[in-house]
């Protein structure tokens, strides 16, 4: 027998709906508790927590509608689910690595390196296309330099290494 929480990660339309509803309900509950017990400075009229509270109520109502809603539940598209997880991981790991690289190497160098590495990672045959990937990275560096240093002078943060 399939438990309700097992439905959440199925990737079907119904599973996605339920997962979103659970996220919304959690957010609405946590937010309402924060409104009731958090430190909110008194303000004229009903107060500055009015709109956040309304947003939580709307989210909770939408979550309930999503939970009771019936609809077609096509089979999970496993092939499409994997890229989304990869994308989330990419954003998480990539942002940490990128910001660390920016601190050490500067925004320009870190971005050019990032573009080169990403182009190589996306290549079917990295060894055969290494030159094209490096050229893409370097030419993007030239474009970035022209855009951000010559056309719109922007003060980039000083790198730690040089």
């Amino acid at each position: 027998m399939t438990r309700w929480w097992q439905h959440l990660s199925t990737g079907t339309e119904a599973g996605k709906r339920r997962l979103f509803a659970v996220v919304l309900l959690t957010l609405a509950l946590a937010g309402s508790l924060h409104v009731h017990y958090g430190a909110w400075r008194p303000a004229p009229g009903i107060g500055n927590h009015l709109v956040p509270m309304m947003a939580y109520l709307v989210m909770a109502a939408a979550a309930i509608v999503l939970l009771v809603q019936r609809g077609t539940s096509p089979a999970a598209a496993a092939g499409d689910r994997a890229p989304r997880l990869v994308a989330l991981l990419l954003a998480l790991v990539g942002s940490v690595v990128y910001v660390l690289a920016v601190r050490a190497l500067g925004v320009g160098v870190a971005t050019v390196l990032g573009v080169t590495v990403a182009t190589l990672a996306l290549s079917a045959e990295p060894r055969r296309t290494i030159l094209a990937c490096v050229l893409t990275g370097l030419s993007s560096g030239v474009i970035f330099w022209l855009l951000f240093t010559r056309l719109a002078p922007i003060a980039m943060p000083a790198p730690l290494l040089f």
Partner: protein
Amino acid sequence: MLEILPDALALAFSPTVILFALIGLVLGVTVGAIPGLSGDMAIAVLLPFVFAMEPAAALGLLVGVYKGSMFGGSISAITFGVPGTAGAVATAIDGYQATKQGKPNRALHTALYASIIGDTTSDLVLIFLAVPLAAVALSFGPVEFFALYVVSLLLISALTMGKVAQGVAAAALGVLIAMIGRDPITGALRLTFGVPALSGGIGLIPLLVGVFAVSEILLQIARTWQHRATRVAERLEAQIVRAGYDPKADRLDWASFRSTWRSVAVGTGAGTFIGALPGAGASLAAFVAYGLAQRVSRRPEQFGKGSLEGVAAAESGNSATAGATFIPLFAFGIPGSATAALFGAALIMQGITPGPTMLQDNMAIIYALFAILIYANLMNLGVSKLLLPVYSRLAMIEPRYVLPVVLGLAILGTYAASNSLNDVWMLFAAGMLGVALRSLDVPLGPLVLGFIVGPGLERSLRQGLMLGRNDVMHLVASPLAIGLYLGGIALLAVFWWSFRRKGTARVGAGP
């Protein structure tokens, strides 16, 4: 008004503005023609750059990108059956069939002319409707504005992809994100949870670029990485090698295009009406136009089999939303679509606040924008006609070279707009939020629109309640506000009935 026209025209026709509009057009068609890249993504990435530009030049660039991408999306749809944008999905139905029958040139030219006619008509409607509507909106007080914000958010949520509950929840989430930072009335911090970086609130640029561009780029990179062994270019190249293709026989003559006039007229009318409604996107307009054109056509059986009428209806329908989508933004300050939200952000960055007073306070710029909207269509016609053979090959550009560069531009652009690494963090956070919401099939448009109208909604609600001494009934005391609520309910009922009847609730694809 007339005395401002010479100044406005001088602004619109200055060489710099024309040049930027031209650059925007070429960039827009390129972006639209490459599947995976969209006009909204390009506008989002360009936002940090337009911050430093002159207002007219900035608007010229963005208008060029927008109009170019509207038509660009149909190029890959017709040539390869791969719609470059959501609005071009309906174009692919007959467009690709026409290509397979050896008449890609006729289909592309039909799409181009229909797109220009639809777009120009829609721009004219915007010009002649936005000014009187803005004059009406000047009489609005907090109660009426609150009603307008609520009705707009409901319409936006309800019409986006037909997923009402998800849309409403996304709009509420957007409003909540907009509340982070300082309360505009007391100056007290709220929802910052002790994080100093959040005390200034969430920036418009990191949120827009993150949600629209970074999330899509990350997904595209993830997909490309997963399927990196597949040579997309080779596959597409194989598709266009057609035996026996005679370019001389594939020319669109006047008689053939004239036979599509009914479809163009129906598409333009439907697209302009749907485009003016908050939340109804180009894709919905294209499908509605396609369906209506089939009904009025003398050859309905040809639809779906490479009919030029089908191409013309879909293309005029989606392009006719281009001008009309700005009507709620210019008249009331409410962005009716994701593209209008991005333009609203660009206007705010230029010191122009969208809303009923915008036309009075910035008359020269806005009238210059009207002129740019019209001449950009003519430029689009000339440039696209000239470069169609080149554009048709754009879909072969391998995404692995384009996506990392666009991501780099998005990151550097966001950093450059505020000189703050905090915004880069927020950009990645917004990108992850975008990926998560896309994974759950939650429309992103309502989230961004909720974020943009959130502060206005809060201001009007709190002012309205203060005026009514905290009596909630004061919010429905004004006849104008009641009229807005009833109008919104009537529109929702009409669309709900129409969706149920036609079973097209899943057709409308918003942002």
